[in-house]
């Protein structure tokens, strides 16, 4: 797993006096979002295909 911007987050934490547990939770969240961003960058065509498949399925057979 890639840890991104933790130094920035750490500086923010020290400045704001964030508790270590909250820092760890925030760090996990940051890394999840960064992983999402990378996933989107790499898999955009596959995502678009999946979204259209889901739209077709919902449009023709779905419920409100």
């Amino acid at each position, binding site marked *: *797993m*890639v840890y991104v911007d933790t130094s920035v987050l750490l500086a923010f934490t020290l400045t704001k006096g964030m508790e270590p547990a909250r820092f760890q939770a925030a760090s996990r*969240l*940051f890394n*999840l*979002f*960064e*992983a*999402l*961003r*990378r*996933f*989107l960058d*790499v*898999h*955009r*065509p*596959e*995502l*678009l*295909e999946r*979204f*259209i*498949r*889901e*739209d*077709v*399925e*919902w*449009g*023709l*057979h*779905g419920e*409100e």
Partner: protein
Amino acid sequence: MEKNKTATIAVCDAGPLIHLDELDSLDLLADFQVWIPDAVWKEVQHHRPTALQRPRVPCEHRVVSGPIAPTLLALSRALALDAGEIEALAIMASVPQALFLTDDAAARLAAEQLGYRVHGSIGILLRAIRRGQLTATEVLARLQAIPQRSSLHIAFTISLFAPLALVAFQRDGPGGGCPQLRLPPHPATRVGKAHRLRGSLLCRVTHPGGA
């Protein structure tokens, strides 16, 4: 026009409003309560003002009240969402049972992660058959007109899928399956593994050349 307050709320991003209007299909939103965030309203007013002037689609101009949740802000920054998409997701937080309409992959991914129902212009067009608003032939014509008449950008191979699925639907009826359309693998794949855990999309990102 009296608005049906029991209708599903559709919180709209700019994309579907603009793209459906370009395809003369905005009326397909008439059976929704259409909520348009302020930033989206301004964007549509600038790029496609006619989309806000359809008498059969009464749009509610919604302004986000209160600060944006830090989690949404962080997610929005990571996925580079624009102001309209952020406002739309902030409004969705107050009506989580609503439908979010967007044609943007990043906004749709963010909405999925937040647990919202989300669809795009293609879904609205195809839904018109199920709702009896248009015939399958009419919808097929509009899907095929997307490259010429709409600014909705989807890759050529992907753009074939919805018309193919609709032809299969016409041929086989509602029980028919969707055709399989295999896309070539993306050349820049660097993600080693992707899997779903507790409803969230988590992916393990490997370093180039790393273990």
